[in-house]
């Protein structure tokens, strides 16, 4: 056993290759009151992988990714991010959150701060970066999400699609190793969706590790390495996107896809 370094996951990894898991979840369970939101969830994500999570509403998709950065506390099971165990109520959870970017369905930009300040507040407060360096980095990121000309506006002055791109840039500002997307396009008007998806595709092509809760099948097919299908608090099916969308194994996945396509 001791001749193989890959078999000792308890040690924090000193170097990373494509095959090292950045997220390891085992036996994860979560209840809201008496309602079971997650039951015995097991999966792992390697560096650079793009995972798409889909499933009917209320199936626990959002809860799952919110457990990864402890916006929700789980009761049972272990979560490791980059080798470090994430425990409910842990003291230095901020250090893990700084490595994990998150994009919300409802953007959640800070409305009292300009677009630029929305981006720089994290690096300035968390990394002690000075304002000029932070602004420079923020402008580069805004350029990457094609919105640098709006840097001095306030979130309310932007369209939903623009706000979501700012939110992506804000998450990237912390230079995360992993990005979580919680239905990033569900609150957008149809004509705004493609701009946000384009940014996400570019991000994926740049090698970012991503876990996306989304029903955008085109996006899932284009960038997804694996699709995780959840229903009723459990992972029902895991497969590559092509197989999942064209030839799902389980009846529950078939039912879900038929409902998704029929509207």
């Amino acid at each position, binding site marked *: 056993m001791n001749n193989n370094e890959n078999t000792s996951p308890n040690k924090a990894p000193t170097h990373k290759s494509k095959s090292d898991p950045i997220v390891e979840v085992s036996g994860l369970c979560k209840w809201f009151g008496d309602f079971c939101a997650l039951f015995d969830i097991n999966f792992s994500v390697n560096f650079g992988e793009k995972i798409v999570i889909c499933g009917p509403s209320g199936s626990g998709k959002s809860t799952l990714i919110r457990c990864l*950065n402890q*916006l929700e506390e789980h009761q049972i099971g272990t979560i490791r991010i980059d080798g470090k165990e994430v425990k409910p109520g842990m003291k230095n959870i901020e250090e893990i*959150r700084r490595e994990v970017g*998150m994009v919300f369905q409802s953007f959640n930009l800070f409305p009292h701060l300009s677009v630029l300040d929305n981006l720089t507040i994290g690096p300035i407060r968390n990394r002690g970066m000075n304002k000029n360096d932070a602004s420079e980095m923020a402008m580069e990121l805004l350029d990457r999400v094609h919105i640098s000309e709006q840097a001095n506006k*306030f979130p309310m002055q932007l369209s939903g699609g623009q706000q979501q791109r700012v939110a992506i840039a804000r998450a990237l500002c912390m230079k995360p190793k992993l990005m979580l997307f919680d239905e990033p396009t569900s609150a957008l008007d149809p004509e705004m969706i493609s701009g946000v998806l384009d940014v996400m595709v570019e991000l994926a092509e740049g090698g970012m590790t991503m876990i996306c809760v989304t029903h955008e099948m085109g996006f899932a097919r284009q960038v997804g390495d694996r699709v995780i299908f959840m229903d009723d608090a459990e992972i029902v099916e895991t497969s590559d996107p092509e197989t999942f969308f064209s030839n799902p194994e389980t009846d529950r996945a078939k039912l879900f896809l038929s409902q998704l396509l029929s509207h």
Partner: protein
Amino acid sequence: MDRNSPPPPLRKRRITYVDLVLIGLVVAMIAYAVYRVNDVLVYNWNWDRVFSFILRYDEETDRWVTNLLVQGLLTTLRLAIWSTILATIIGVIMGYWRRCNNLSLRIISRAYVELIRNIPPIVFIFIFYFFISSQIFPMIGLSNLRHDSPYMDNALFRILFGDPRLFENFIAGMICLAVFEGAYITEIVRAGIQSIGKGQWEAGRAIGLSHFNILRDVILPQAIRKILPPLAGQFITLIKDSAIVSLISIQELTFLATEVAATTTKVFETWILVGAMYFVLCYFFAYVFGKLEQRSARSNG
């Protein structure tokens, strides 16, 4: 007709018979009140006597100088401003405690709010005044201040706190009012913090901000913007509530008016005048705050 032609006028609001009857009734009631006072009570109006307590002609220096009632008004204004500042500090701390995770802090702030909101202000002021004047002042060394020291006997001090000889008296009134109004501001702050959506906390957490940083950089700036209108309203309430500290001999407008009414025996004139002074003061602030609110609403789009 085309879309660029001037739009036809909307229906106009006219004065109706109901309005005329109501206005007539109000005029009749005022006239009856004046009749009762003048002809039935045979009240002898003497406004000049009372006006002299606002402005007085000083024969020695050959100038008009302000008299008791103006000094009282200024003391009331100073009391209101300082108490509001102190009460806001208390309110922000207690308001945060109302919602924080620490049980004992929640209990302390809840007890503070409920205690003060369920005791008549006058009773509270009597109890609390006895406490601060007998316990707190000796403790912080306020009971043996030298009023003639250059730190106290200067123009700036007089503008900020009034007469140095009445400083302890002023501070006692200010603390009483601040602790009292702080309970109401606590509830305003709590509501303000609660009105900021969960998503703002989550967004702050997601980029790894500490609890304190989220509160300071994300939640409070937004909450304070939202609570400015009710806070301004509370300031005006505080101006009116400040009249109760006259009962512990704080020399503000109501206290001095009591003395003027007693020495002149012109009760009606004094209190009508004092009421008018309060009205002008409060209405002025309400008007200014209203304008500021309109402006900030415009600038926020």
